[in-house]
């Protein structure tokens, strides 16, 4: 039989993962079987795939993950301590598996934290309803080989008084591929701030394939901060599949500070009227890094609002991509949808790709999008220097000013400090 290169890479990965993964109880067999079938059929995407044009996952797997050792490290409290956030309840997921031992135990009214195997039957019906294997090969890969990840729920009418901080950490001794999954359910009238941090501890290369399904109930509010600092040995795809309900409010602010390849798929369905979604992102990339933010905002019902602001600073030979799709369906009259992407190129070898895509099927809507990519403002630079400020600090002042409005969105002081510190270090 002749196999082409594409299916060869996928098949090698599937074979290795099939030997080295154990099946989780919560994922129905039918989902696993159709996920594998989809993968075998479509393969891991390469740059010929429209959605992965600037993010060749297949090439990464071929080059960096020829052999998948799955040599996982055990982690201790000492490893996790520096990653924690003081103001928050810290929850830990190691190599895709929720660790009750490393997570902080605190009894908070209306809050459930558990592993996915403990998913209650009422929630189980929602599993895979937003993250569908037949829409994306990385979702399929995660579904087929997912670990026993995190189940988090806020029961209706509860406001969680402190932020929840989920530390997703990978750690291996030799090449590992992790398929981390989380299921977040914020019921009606509930409110919580969720910080999701991503780290890689150790000296091994990690391909991290994360999928999170998030549900925001009627009149509920979910504010998320995604903090990505996985380092030069990490290649990650992070997929958020979010469904928000009537009168609800969903916000995500994603800060990407390191990672050799970081692909974020952030897909939000505004499933009922009068809800709002805010997606923001900031990245700074250097070396040969690639940061690729893909968003999809699906306006299905009337009187909803969405806002997107993505900013990036690309240094050296790094590549930044923003691809923002907005659907306004036939019934979604009176939609307000705004999208903006602003980028600064710090070197002639850096690249920025931006692509806004608006598909509007309703007639009474307000939509706007704008993208800009340029070099640092030389007029402003000269003005600062003419006042005695050196070239280096003048650049830093301007880049900080560029990023400030996004960093200001973080309401948890120690997270804000962490982002600011790493951002300044990367300048």
């Amino acid at each position, binding site marked *: 039989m002749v196999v082409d290169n594409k299916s060869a890479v996928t098949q090698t990965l599937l074979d290795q993962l099939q030997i080295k993964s154990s099946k989780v109880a919560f994922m129905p067999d039918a989902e696993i079987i159709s996920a594998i079938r989809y993968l075998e059929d479509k393969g891991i995407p390469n740059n010929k795939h429209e959605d992965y044009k600037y993010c060749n996952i297949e090439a990464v797997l071929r080059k960096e993950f020829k052999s998948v050792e799955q040599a996982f490290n055990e982690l201790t409290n000492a490893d996790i301590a520096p990653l924690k956030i003081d103001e928050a309840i810290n929850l830990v997921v190691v190599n895709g598996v929720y660790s009750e031992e490393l997570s902080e135990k605190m009894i908070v009214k209306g809050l459930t934290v558990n592993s996915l195997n403990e998913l209650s039957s009422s929630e189980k019906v929602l599993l895979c309803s937003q993250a569908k294997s037949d829409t994306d090969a990385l979702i399929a890969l995660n579904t087929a080989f997912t670990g026993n990840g995190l189940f988090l729920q806020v029961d209706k009418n509860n406001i969680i008084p402190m932020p929840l901080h989920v530390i997703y950490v990978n750690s291996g001794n030799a090449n590992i591929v992790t398929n981390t999954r989380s299921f977040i359910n914020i019921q009606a009238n509930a409110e919580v701030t969720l910080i999701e941090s991503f780290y890689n501890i150790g000296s091994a290369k990690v391909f991290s394939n994360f999928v999170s399904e998030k549900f925001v109930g009627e009149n509920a509010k979910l504010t998320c901060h995604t903090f990505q600092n996985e380092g030069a040995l990490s290649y990650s795809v992070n997929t958020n599949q979010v469904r928000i309900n009537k009168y609800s409010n969903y916000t995500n602010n994603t800060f990407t500070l390191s990672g050799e390849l970081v692909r974020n798929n952030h897909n939000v369905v505004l499933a009922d009227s009068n809800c709002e979604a805010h997606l923001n992102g900031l990245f700074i990339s250097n070396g040969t890094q690639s940061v690729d933010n893909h968003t999809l905002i699906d306006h299905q019902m009337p009187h909803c609002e969405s806002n997107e602001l993505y900013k990036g600073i690309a240094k050296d030979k790094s590549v930044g991509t923003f691809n923002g799709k907005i659907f306004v369906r036939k019934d979604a009259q009176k939609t307000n949808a705004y999208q903006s992407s602003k980028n600064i190129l710090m070197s002639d070898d850096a690249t920025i790709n931006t692509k806004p895509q608006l598909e509007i099927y309703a007639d009474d809507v307000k939509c706007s999008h704008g993208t800009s990519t340029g070099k640092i403002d030389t007029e402003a630079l000269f*003005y600062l220097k*003419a006042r005695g*400020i050196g070239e280096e600090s003048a650049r830093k*002042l*301007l880049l*900080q000013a560029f990023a400030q409005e996004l960093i200001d969105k973080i309401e948890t002081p120690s997270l804000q400090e962490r982002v600011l510190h790493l951002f300044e270090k990367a300048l």
Partner: protein
Amino acid sequence: MITIKNLHASIGDKEILRGINLEVKAGEVHAIMGPNGSGKSTLSSVLAGREDYDVTEGEVTFNGKNLLDLPAEDRAREGLFLAFQYPVEIPGVSNINFLRTALNEIRAYHGQEEMPAKDFLALVKEKSKLVELDSKLASRSVNEGFSGGEKKRNEIFQMAMLNPKLAILDETDSGLDIDALRIVATGVNKLKSKDNATIVITHYQRLLDYIVPDFVHILYKGRIVKSGGKELALEMEAKGYDEIKAQFDSLES
């Protein structure tokens, strides 16, 4: 203070300054006048260290140092200040943070310690009063959303904060109403001393009623074509530039 000898500067293959000679001593006020496009802003930009221009000939000595060898920031640290004709808006950088950084980098250059926050804020208060700048503007982003007059006053406020040896005011009077003009001029006069000097670039004689120059120079097509005392400014105001233009245009052809 500053000695400019045979300064030539061009942008691309267009020569804009074509042999400027000028000496300004401590304690003096010089005015440079001249029609639009004669090179006044170019001269101030070249002195401040804007890199878009190529200096093709000539030299500039500033307090014993070769000015043209220094990067823009070091010129400022040596005590040169340019009040921009078109101050730049810098969203996201607060006026205060900007000035604190500038002041402390200048101090560091001279081996001085950072100014304590309390002293700095007291200085901000004192100097903003000098130009009657609304204290709210100090905490806003640099020049962002400022009116034309506020921008110009902000320039003089910065000058007061940084206390330069040589200040070049590039058309600081343009776009100011008479009250704002008086405020700006009073500010400049209060900052004047026997140890510093001012070059006032202007279109109109009106500013010179308030800031009285010791010398007036007429710049035309990149050269100083005429110098004199303060009466020269009055003469130009009365007669306009046509005579000078005609005289030098005929010389050139």
